[in-house]
């Protein structure tokens, strides 16, 4: 597999990888680094890629695992401050979103969800994968994916209703 063949097969889902990484790592810079790192890994393992029926699902699984590793090492080294630093950089984007009908509330609500529900929402409601694929990516049975997704959707909706009714942000 040469470089252009490789890129042809993996570049179409680059933004999906990036968005998944951003969902988990929060900051754009970190998500970009993670995306770069993931493509390095894929490139180094390019001979094995032919063995995978679904390279995209494989890449998403790798992204998820890589981001979890990053989060773990961050927690281990107590770099929680870095997290808040990055948030400030994103304020421009956040205000942009805020202008559009409080959609940023949804962002925060998803951020508060348990990791698995966060992933399921990202993969289903944003990237629109089917349950089979999500199950493969997260190593879950499709029914478990449904359960997590249902919980996540209900939580987000409930919180939004609460905030709209009582004016709490």
């Amino acid at each position: 597999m040469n470089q252009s063949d490789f890129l042809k097969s993996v570049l179409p889902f680059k933004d999906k990888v990036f968005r998944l990484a951003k969902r988990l790592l929060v900051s754009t810079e970190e998500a970009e680094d993670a995306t770069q790192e993931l493509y390095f890994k894929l490139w180094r393992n390019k001979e094995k890629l032919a063995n995978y029926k679904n390279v995209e699902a494989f890449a998403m699984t790798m992204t998820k695992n890589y981001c979890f590793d990053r989060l773990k090492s961050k927690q281990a080294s107590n770099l929680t401050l870095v997290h808040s630093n990055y948030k400030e950089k994103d304020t421009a984007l956040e205000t942009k979103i805020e202008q559009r009908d409080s959609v940023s509330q949804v962002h925060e609500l998803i951020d508060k969800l348990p990791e698995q529900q966060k992933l399921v929402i990202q993969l289903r409601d944003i990237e629109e994968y089917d349950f089979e694929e999500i199950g493969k990516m997260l190593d879950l049975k499709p029914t478990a994916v449904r359960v997590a997704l249902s919980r996540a959707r209900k939580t987000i909706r409930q919180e939004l209703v609460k905030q709209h009714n009582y004016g709490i942000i």
Partner: protein
Amino acid sequence: MELSKIEQLLEKYLNAETNLQEEATLKNYFSTGDVAPHLQEYESMFGYFAISKAETSAKPIQLNTKKKNWKWLSVAASVALLVSVYVGNGYLKEQEARAQYAEVMSTLKLLSTSLNKGNEAMASLYVYEDTVNKIFKTK
């Protein structure tokens, strides 16, 4: 799309029983901006999903690490060049100095041999003078 149908779909949606097509229908409905007031929380949700999906990574992917190495290589090369210019310059100066030294030395040698020749000639003159004096005294 009738409102009752949307409400039905939303019920299924919350239970994660909708398929991708039905979810597309919902996304479509909530992107029109004409949403029933009691469903506004869904408008925020689906609006957020649409915005998120549009986000892209601006950074291009690089597969070659060599580029980074080239940077370091150029730094190393420039350092090597500087060092070699410095050392070479010193060597050149030394060579020049040696050449000048050799030239001066050969000139001095020439001078000294000429002087020696003069001395020898002088020595024979002295001998001549001595002899002359001897002759005149003995006279």
